């Protein structure tokens, strides 16, 4: 439970556009432990998504260190980073990002296809994940036939089907109504508890904060507060 999986040391990120420089993250020092349910909160432009992208290995810091499972990510090339994402990191996006031509089952299965799992392994895992998010009956539907809440559940199933150590979720409830947002959060808490998956959110939805075990507040690219909540 107290095993450290992520450590950020003096991490900074600066975007350059022509002659304009914008520092999105400044000297971030954070550490994340296994099965934490962490939310990064803050206003738009505070650096939440940038930090999530770096943690998810889809972006690189300009300065500082990002240590993932004891390995310095600076040494990762594109292939290594992809391999880490494939195996250890699941993503949940605000806009779900489901592949429209795939069924619910196929969308979830995709994550396992990339891991070269056998068909029976894939089938078991996909059905288990769909059961966990309560979408077993909709497995043959395609994303355009689903509601926002259902789509986000598919995205969750896709993120957790490979049983990753970390799930990154960028504003997962932003496009959902209160009822669906509550249901989604409950689902993620259950997964967090059952699979010991670490969840790291970016959110500015105050209702989501009620579910978090740790809240990191970001302001202008700095960590202003890091609050651990005893549930």
């Amino acid at each position, binding site marked *: 439970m107290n095993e450290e999986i992520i450590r950020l040391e003096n991490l900074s990120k600066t975007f350059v556009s022509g002659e304009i420089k914008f520092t999105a993250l400044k000297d971030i020092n954070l550490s994340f432990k296994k099965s934490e349910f962490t939310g990064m909160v803050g206003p738009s432009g505070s650096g939440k998504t940038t930090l999530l*992208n770096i943690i*998810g290995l*889809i*972006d690189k810091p300009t300065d500082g260190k990002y240590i993932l499972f004891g390995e310095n990510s600076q040494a990762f090339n*594109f*292939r290594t980073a*992809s*391999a*880490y*994402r*494939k*195996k250890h990191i699941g*993503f949940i*996006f605000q*806009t779900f*990002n489901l*592949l*429209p*031509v*795939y069924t619910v089952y*196929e969308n979830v299965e*995709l*994550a396992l*296809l*990339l*891991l*070269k799992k056998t068909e029976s392994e894939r089938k078991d895992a996909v059905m288990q994940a769909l059961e966990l998010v309560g979408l077993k009956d909709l497995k043959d539907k395609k994303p355009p036939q689903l509601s926002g809440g259902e789509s986000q559940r598919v995205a969750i199933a*896709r993120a957790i089907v490979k049983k990753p150590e970390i799930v990154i979720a960028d504003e997962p409830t932003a496009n959902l109504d209160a009822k669906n947002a509550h249901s989604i959060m409950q689902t993620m808490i259950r997964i967090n508890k059952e699979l010991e998956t670490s969840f790291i959110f970016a959110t500015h939805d105050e209702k989501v904060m009620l579910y978090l075990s740790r809240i990191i507040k970001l302001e202008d690219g700095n960590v202003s507060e890091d609050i651990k909540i005893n549930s």
Partner: protein
Amino acid sequence: MKTEIKIAFKNFFGGGIKSWLNSIAISFAFVFIIFYYGMIDGWNQQTSKDAIDWEYGYGHVIHKNYDPFNVFSLPESHEAITEDFTENLTPVLISHGNIIVNYKANPILIKGIDPNQNIVKIPTANLKNNTAVIGSKMASECKLKSGDSIKIQYFNFSGEPDTVNFKIVEIFNTNVHFVDNGQIWISIHELNKMLGTQNHATYFIAHKNFENINSETWKFISQEALIKPIQELINTKKAGAAVIYILLLAIGLMVIYDTVALAIFRRQKEIGTLAALGLTQKEILRIFIIEGIFYCVGGIIIGLIYGIPLFYYLARYGISFPVSGDSIGVIMAPIIYSVYSFELIANTIIILLMSSAFISYLAAKKITKMNIVDSLKGKAL
């Protein structure tokens, strides 16, 4: 690679009618390329066969001075047939002369051939004294029919002009105008008599079992060498057809390029998602290349569905051309039966697949430079 193929396969079918419309467009190029080349191959094969059947046999043994394109070489290009040249060879003696039709003298070649020959299709069996056979084009030009008498003017053994009457006993139909236009065929014995020569020949038509004989006077030209100029001529038509081939291929490939390029623009989020799921950019690039190839595979399958009956019809019943071969200087049957070889179909498929892979790569290579974060926002391009 298996995973990329699976994903591309699903994307192709997921594209629904759009994917099939692309494939239909490519199928037109595929079918037309095979149709066109099949027709040229059929023409080539028919022409070669006709030339062999009517003129070349298994090769010619020609007199060293004989130049088929120079009528003035004829008086110096015949020689007595020696014993070595009697087996598996049909002698032909040529002289020039005039045919008198309606008081007008038209230059012709008088060709004497062994009436007992069976190596070429010229109907020589009825050639006796003062009888001749001519081709249908010659008959049409001179307004002659079977049973007509004709007067032939020629130069006899003393070099004096002389005339002789012949009865047309048969008019044959052939596509090979080199044995038809401006020619009459008579018995070689008769022609030797007219010219005052003893068993002379200008060239021989070789039979199947003929073996080359070393001689200073006679030169053997194989069947392949005789056919070569015809095939080269037809191949130049094929080279011309390459322009159409390239044009059709370009249209098909442009369809693939547009589709793949547009798909990348439209599916940026999907590209970002695949990258986030753990695919490398090269793997994603491969998916789009394979998708491009699938459009082509779909085109080939559709093309084969409606192409096979069409090709079968053209191979069996042929296609007629209003232009006659002699008007364009080549042997050409009025109906050309297309020939579709395995090689033609396999080569066309391979070229289409390779080109579609290459064009898909060109359209999709920008994926390798796309930023994942921007892709996920749909703003990478």
